[in-house]
């Protein structure tokens, strides 16, 4: 089984490559990247003229809801959404039912992914049993079973002592602790960002400080323990500043930002659309500018979607009461190609870096590179492809996107995992 991708613009930031080239793949690995490659016995040839060929994109923050919430999403539907969105690998959060806090759940997720999945699935284990924040999950066994990181995402571990012990305990595994930084007392039950818009809408807001105080705490705990702390879905100007300072002082802190926090502000909440309700909430223009600046200067290491599917019934009703979260796998890359790259706010190699080698390095995953011998995980992009976000056509089981009706240019057109085309 071999594959030759001919004539595309190969963007491979890990190897400093941005040039028209061919990519030859065999046995699930990259054989060679170069001009005028010939392989007489090649099984399949893809003409990528005019398109971009890059290492497979990786989303380290998704919720596939299986086991337990299959009515929202499954590993089968979630991985198909990922493939359609140009992602060759995803990392799944632990807030399933039961919680991924013991190896039998990790085994189940991996078995499901092997049989029903179409992209690589990496489980993330819980930090504490049942995500309750009280006692450590069996992290050694979880790491042994294949968990690539630990997180109580969805909940913030409010007890700093427990969190300190989790960071210390995880040191031998070389896996990061991923922080959902949200002080639950300060956040209270605020349904959106606290500010002028929340006051005008009459909705209870939560202040930026609910995030920043926890980012500050977690950076200090990383410094104390020597652990690698990764800040999930960073959204405020203050958090970006704290991470930048932490990195400058040599603390092992990294961060991710979502497409919705890069592209939307709390102004989007004005029509009370429940699909604009996310945790952390959409912030102000100043915050949006700060997270983009952080992404450009490398303070923020990668983009992750926080793909959070919900059933329609959970997104209906009053804004204050409906579920938090939006889906992102099928909209992320088109939106980023149009609103950042085409708009001239970020160059393509930087975007690819933040979507492929960036996240791969962060979780020590294979991939993120087109070097010889690397897994043949490849995404092909067409920068001229016109698109409209139509939730009814999602491969995901869920429809909860704030971007319905958005249009633009540039989209993934082919996703290749281990040398096999999983969507075209």
């Amino acid at each position, binding site marked *: 089984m071999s594959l030759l991708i001919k004539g595309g613009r190969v963007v491979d930031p890990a190897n400093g490559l941005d040039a028209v080239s061919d990519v030859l793949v065999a046995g699930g690995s990259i054989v060679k990247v170069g001009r005028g490659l010939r392989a007489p016995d090649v099984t399949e040839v893809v003409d990528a003229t005019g398109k971009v060929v890059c290492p497979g994109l990786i989303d380290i923050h998704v919720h596939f809801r299986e086991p337990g919430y299959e009515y929202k999403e499954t590993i089968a539907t979630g991985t198909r959404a990922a493939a359609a969105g140009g992602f060759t690998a995803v990392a799944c959060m632990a807030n399933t039912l039961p919680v991924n806090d013991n190896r039998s759940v990790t085994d189940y997720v991996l078995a499901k992914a092997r049989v029903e999945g179409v992209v690589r699935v990496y489980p993330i284990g819980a930090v504490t049993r049942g995500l309750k924040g009280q006692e450590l999950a069996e992290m050694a066994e979880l790491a042994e079973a294949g968990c690539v990181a630990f997180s109580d995402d969805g909940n913030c571990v409010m007890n700093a002592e427990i969190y300190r012990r989790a960071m210390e305990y995880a040191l031998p595994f070389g896996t990061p602790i991923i922080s959902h930084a949200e002080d639950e007392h300060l956040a209270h039950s605020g349904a959106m960002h606290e*500010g002028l818009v929340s*006051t005008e809408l009459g909705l209870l*807001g939560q202040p930026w400080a609910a995030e920043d105080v926890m980012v500050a705490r977690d950076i200090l705990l990383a410094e104390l323990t020597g652990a690698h702390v990764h800040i999930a879905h960073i959204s405020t100007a203050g958090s970006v500043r704290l991470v930048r300072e932490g990195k400058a002082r040599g603390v092992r802190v990294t961060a991710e930002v979502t497409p919705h926090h890069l592209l939307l502000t709390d102004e989007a909440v004005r029509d009370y659309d429940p699909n604009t309700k996310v945790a952390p909430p959409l912030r102000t223009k100043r915050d949006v500018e700060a997270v983009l600046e952080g992404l450009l200067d490398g303070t923020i290491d990668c983009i992750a979607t926080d793909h959070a599917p919900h059933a329609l019934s959970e997104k209906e009703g009053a804004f204050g009461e409906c579920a938090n979260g939006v889906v992102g796998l099928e909209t992320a890359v088109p939106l980023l190609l149009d609103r950042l790259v085409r708009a001239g706010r970020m160059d393509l190699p930087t975007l690819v870096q933040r979507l492929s080698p960036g996240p791969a390095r962060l979780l020590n995953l294979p991939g993120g590179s087109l070097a010889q011998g690397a897994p043949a995980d490849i995404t092909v992009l067409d920068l001229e492809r016109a698109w409209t976000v139509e939730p009814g056509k999602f491969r995901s089981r869920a429809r909860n996107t704030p971007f319905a009706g958005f249009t633009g240019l540039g989209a993934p057109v082919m996703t290749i995992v281990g040398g096999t085309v999983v969507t075209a």
Partner: protein
Amino acid sequence: MRKMGMTVTVAGPPTLIPPACQEMGVKVSHRLEEAIAHADVIMMLRLQHERMTGGFIPSLREYSRVWGLGLDRLKHCRPDVLIMHPGPVNRGVEISPEVADSPYSVILDQVTNGVAVRMAVLYLLAGGKAA
């Protein structure tokens, strides 16, 4: 109110002041005497039960003493001041019965008009025609 040309000051303990309301063009005061000194109209608001128990204020007793509008505080006001309140009134909490029932008060007119305005809004929203 701003649209109708009013100059608006909101006053209360900082925990109860809506976030970012200065950006809407209103002044914020943390001293009741200062806020009411030159006002043409004082609109008191009911302290909601969830605000009483949600940790926004230490006690009703203290709130009433610091922020309640009693006769003694009326001495600082203009002689032709109008006292309003959308109701229902927590008598003795944000406003004393003596002030609520004083000649300065137009609370009962306000509440009566409020019913008529609500009726009109519901009628129009339900598809009724403006006369």
